[in-house]
């Protein structure tokens, strides 16, 4: 007798196994209800909206700070440049740079 015939006999002989797992399964199912598709969609929508809102907030904040920095910064720089020009012109006109060299120990001007 070949393997296939033996397998057929074994198949015929093997008794079915009687079970009743309805109550046990339902008890487990009631304990852990899964996330239903509608809930899952709502969850993903919330996550996506939160992410978009966070990115938008960061962008708006950065643009706003850049603008204020830009305005203040340019103003401050212009004031600094004009002050510098003023003092530079005064110093150049009034003081000979060589006279401004002092000996630290004797506190005399080095000629």
């Amino acid at each position, binding site marked *: 007798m070949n393997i296939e015939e033996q397998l057929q006999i*074994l198949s015929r002989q*093997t008794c079915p196994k009687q079970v009743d797992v309805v109550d046990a399964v339902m008890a487990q*199912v009631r304990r852990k209800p899964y996330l239903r598709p509608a809930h899952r969609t709502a969850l993903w929508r919330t996550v996506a909206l939160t992410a978009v809102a966070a990115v938008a907030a960061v962008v708006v904040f950065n643009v706003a700070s850049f603008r204020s920095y830009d305005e203040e910064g340019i103003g401050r720089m212009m004031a600094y440049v004009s002050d510098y020009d003023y003092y530079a012109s005064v110093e150049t006109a009034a003081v000979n740079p060589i006279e401004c060299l002092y000996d630290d120990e004797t506190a005399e001007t080095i000629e």
Partner: protein
Amino acid sequence: MEDKEIVQKILAGDTEQYAEIVRRYQQIVANLTYKLCGTRLETEEVTQQVFVELYMALPRFRFDSKLSSFIYRITVNTVCKMLNKSKRYVSTDEYETRPDDPSPDRNAEQEIIHREQLEQLRTAIGHLKDEQRTALVLYTFENFSYQQIADVMQCTLAKVESLIFRAKKNLAKEVKQ
């Protein structure tokens, strides 16, 4: 009520309808589980596990195939997972069998040899690799076509043919020894 309607009700939140699905398919799942893992004790436990896994997987069911095919797939996956976890051989020695009608062509001695051969075959099935045993059980015991086995095991038709061929070859080798 058809399976599809019941599944839709469950997905809509009527969890209690799931009892009907379990009632309809528990015997099919238990029989396949029993033939795949070979012990009566584990069959009930694994059957329960299969239905819990099925419940969790229901939202993935696309209604383009039969619910029974989906259940077979989950049964096969759950049993293989369980066997891999316990890393043990399947012992089909525990198959509960009804005696075959004695053949009028066989004398008493031939009858004993015949029974011994079947015992050897049962042990050999238990020693097959999980994939080979699954394909063989579905083909021989559940009368599945190659295409149905390919659907359940999520592999190609050629692989199913190869698995069944190798399973039979290995059985023949082990039974001869």
